[in-house]
């Protein structure tokens, strides 16, 4: 049934329908609406879950790690500084192969204190072994959260479902919420592969010497490499049940495009409009939306971009000293291709600054005008210095 829902409540509804068993969280703008709603569901009994209030995000992740080690379905949510606070435990969750699902609302890192959209927070955790999905709208957030549980419990890797601060978390859109029975068919009760059992006691996460550690890490990488295939399979089942699918990337009008704009998050929606405008101006432009960032979907990206003359990557983030992160990863994917297209890297929309249709058109025309990309990422939309 279609409901008009705030993006954060698209998450909380999915968590409720997925019959999550333990939730632990610490509030932070703009994720708080997610866990507030969940706490109300727990309190009213609508969701039969234990809600553990903790004093920090580090403890929230510690709590869900503990609960997941006990073999139950878990959830937490965070944003910005909160995600940074749980950093060391993000490594732990993946190393321990726990199927935790977390909603991550992309928010700028301080200082300056800024609660609006910026992707640097989630991207600076890209090495932690978590699967990362970037969502464009409320429906995608809902669907991705459900899919995350099924995927995480299949592959035993934790998953971040990522949504833009305010532009997605606080925007109301129509979201189709299916019945519980239908969700139960897609997300059955958890059958944990890891479960602490007092009848058969063991210790988890103990010392592993050089002779054994590398194999554990190789196993994680192997699991990541299986994800694109598993994800595709799973989306097939999802599409059958719910009538929707997204792909690890979405290529729009890339087949005959000279220039492909690469975007993620809510900027994707704006880009669809820019595409339409540019095409009506006769421009041969395409768009590649990146949904799955970890594992990085090399094959899908190469396939979508190989034919283009130029790639313009729009990064709503920056790795200082290196530039836009999506751009780096795309360059890395394309670098061994014979005659691969040059990658133009743009940084825009940090700290909630708007990425408008005009912004994207500026990026397009600038890319069109230049032969070669700059070595450094180009920052779009900066206020002129006075």
């Amino acid at each position, binding site marked *: 049934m279609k409901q008009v829902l705030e993006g954060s409540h698209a998450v909380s509804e999915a968590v409720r329908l997925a019959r999550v068993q333990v939730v632990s969280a610490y509030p932070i703008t703009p994720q708080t609406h997610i866990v507030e709603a969940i706490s109300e569901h727990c309190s009213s009994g609508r969701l039969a879950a234990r809600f553990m209030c903790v004093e920090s995000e580090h403890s929230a992740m510690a709590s869900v790690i503990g609960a997941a080690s006990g073999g139950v379905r878990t959830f937490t949510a965070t944003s910005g500084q909160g995600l940074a606070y749980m950093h060391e435990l993000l490594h732990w969750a993946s190393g321990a192969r726990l199927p935790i699902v977390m909603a991550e609302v992309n928010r700028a890192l301080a200082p300056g204190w800024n609660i609006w959209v910026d992707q640097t927070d989630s991207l600076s955790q890209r090495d932690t072994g978590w699967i990362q999905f970037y969502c464009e709208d409320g429906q995608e957030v809902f669907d991705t959260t459900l899919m995350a549980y099924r995927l995480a419990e299949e592959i035993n890797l934790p998953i971040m479902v990522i949504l833009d601060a305010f532009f997605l978390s606080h925007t109301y859109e129509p979201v189709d919420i299916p019945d519980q029975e239908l969700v139960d068919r897609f997300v059955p009760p958890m059958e944990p592969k*890891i479960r602490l059992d007092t009848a058969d006691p063991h*210790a988890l996460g*103990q*010392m592993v010497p050089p002779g054994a550690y590398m194999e554990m890490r190789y196993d994680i990488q192997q699991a990541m490499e299986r994800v694109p295939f598993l994800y595709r399979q799973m989306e097939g089942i999802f599409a059958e049940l719910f009538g929707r699918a997204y792909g690890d990337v979405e290529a729009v009008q890339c087949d005959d495009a000279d220039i492909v704009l690469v975007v993620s998050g809510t900027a994707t929606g704006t880009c669809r409009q820019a595409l339409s405008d540019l095409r009506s101006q006769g421009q041969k432009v395409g768009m590649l939306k990146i949904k799955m960032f970890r594992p990085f979907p090399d094959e899908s990206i190469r396939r979508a971009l190989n034919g283009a003359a130029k790639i313009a990557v729009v990064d709503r983030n920056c790795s200082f000293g290196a530039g836009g992160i999506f751009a780096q990863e795309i360059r890395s994917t394309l670098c061994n291709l014979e005659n691969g297209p040059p990658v133009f890297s743009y940084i825009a929309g940090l700290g909630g600054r708007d990425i408008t249709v005009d912004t994207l058109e500026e990026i397009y025309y600038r890319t069109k005008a230049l032969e070669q990309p700059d070595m450094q990422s180009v920052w779009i939309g900066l206020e002129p210095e006075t």
Partner: protein
Amino acid sequence: MAGKIEKDREGRLHISRSSISSRINKTGSWRYLKPVYAGRTAPCSAACPAGEDVPHIEHLASQGQFRGALDTILKENPFPAVCGHVCFHPCESACNRSCLDAPLAINAIERFVGCSDTEEKMLPLIQTVPPNGRRVAVIGSGPSGLSAAYFFCRLGYRCDVYESEKEPGGLLRWGIPSYRLPAAILKHEIKRIENLGAQIYCGRKVSASFLRTAEERYHAIFIGCGLARPIRMQIAGDVQALDGLTFLKDIRNGNRGAFSGVSAIIGGGNAAIDVARSLVRLGSHPIILYRRRVEDMPAFELEIGMAQQEGVDIRELTTPVRMDKSARGIALRLQKMATDGFETDSGRARVIPIRGERETLPVQQVFTAIGAEAENPWQQPKNGSGSILHLSHCTLTTVGFPIARGGDLVNQVLSVSDAVASGKQAAMAIDSYFQGGWASVEKRLADCRVGQGPALSLESYLMNDVSHQRHPQLVGYHDINTAYFLPADRAEPMVAGPKERRASFSEYRSDFTTRSAADEAGRCFNCGICNDCDNCRLFCPETAVSVEDTRRIDMDYCKGCGVCVVECPRGAMTMEEAEHETGS
């Protein structure tokens, strides 16, 4: 710490999972400090002249175990109901809770607990020593004498109490007005002491010759006959002044005169206040005249406040210089005084007369309540004869056999609870003397101090082992973890308004209900004692704390991190330097 690492290849999951217990790592070896369940002394207990174990009393009361609370009081004080009525509660001034919101209403709770014991044939379930065949004579059945009899009986002595009046109790019966302490309450608590075996002989005034022959029949004597001779003003015309203590005794004897008009009361102690407040109830308008300032008055502040509310005027820095008969009564000539900035030898503000500042106050009658002294010389210890030991609340002499003097005869603070302390200290001192000789007395008593003293614990004395000694260190507010206490209002039983109070000699304080007594007792921090809140066990990062019949720390794993000590809400634990020990 390499255990066997199992590769859990189920579903191709490669995780580290081991079967070796982490308990092979004895983290106790890291320790250089260790936690101890210290059992430090609460400041209220140390402030109580009787050394009552207040935290335990409050803990029991908070759980509705009023019988247990009563027994705990009776271990150190035979007069819970009496003290609950008349004590000036130094415990409340010392209460750590006052730093958070308001001190605990310890006095009102003691009153409730004391009055909750209504059994006729009650025998306290408290420790006594089997009879030792020795007999003690107690002179005076005031609070010090009765207290001495109580503690002597518990220590196995046969006690005979000699009382000059027709009923026992001393000032409790014949001084303090009934609106502060009804006779029935006192009678009930005296019965308890008699049930322990003390024999009280009334109408038997003791003379000097008694002392001379006492050695034949008794092994020791306690003299607690108080200060029976009122001090006179020694000004012209002072024969017209009525004695305040006699006046109070008459009222307690049932002889209430009619006193109209203005009454002047000379004095600033509790007796002066008692006289004034009694006069209010008899229809007179009392004016207290005190030579120093109100803040210098030795009377309890609460009593001063009550008196002023009831219409008693207090004029400070005024002293009488002569009394003359007048048409309507007495013309009282007064001299105005002023402080000169110096102190007397006893530490009080020194006052000097202001030249030329005199006035005449016409009054109906004048009462003096400026103190009293011992009636007979033998009541005071004589220097130079035999050995003499000045303890905080009694003086011990041996001329052949031990004689202790206590109560108002020797005490610095003239109060009921200090009198109780005298009786206890004397009994313990004399018993120590019999057990270990004169030289052993001070040390033996010092081992029984509550905190730094001067209060002593009989329980410590009876137990006579280190584990039952009261810790010399006090718990301060900084030892309390206030995160575990929410501010809460202090509950107090209602006090009738001044108009109601003036109308009669009835009690004007209502009592706690059972519920409100328990609730108020629940505000107690229980400083220094473990009340099984379980914080230490819950917070220990090594799960090294276990509870069987007592709490124990597994020293194989205790790293000495100190979290338990910080999280103990009531300072019942301390950190000490540690040697390397393992095991529990």
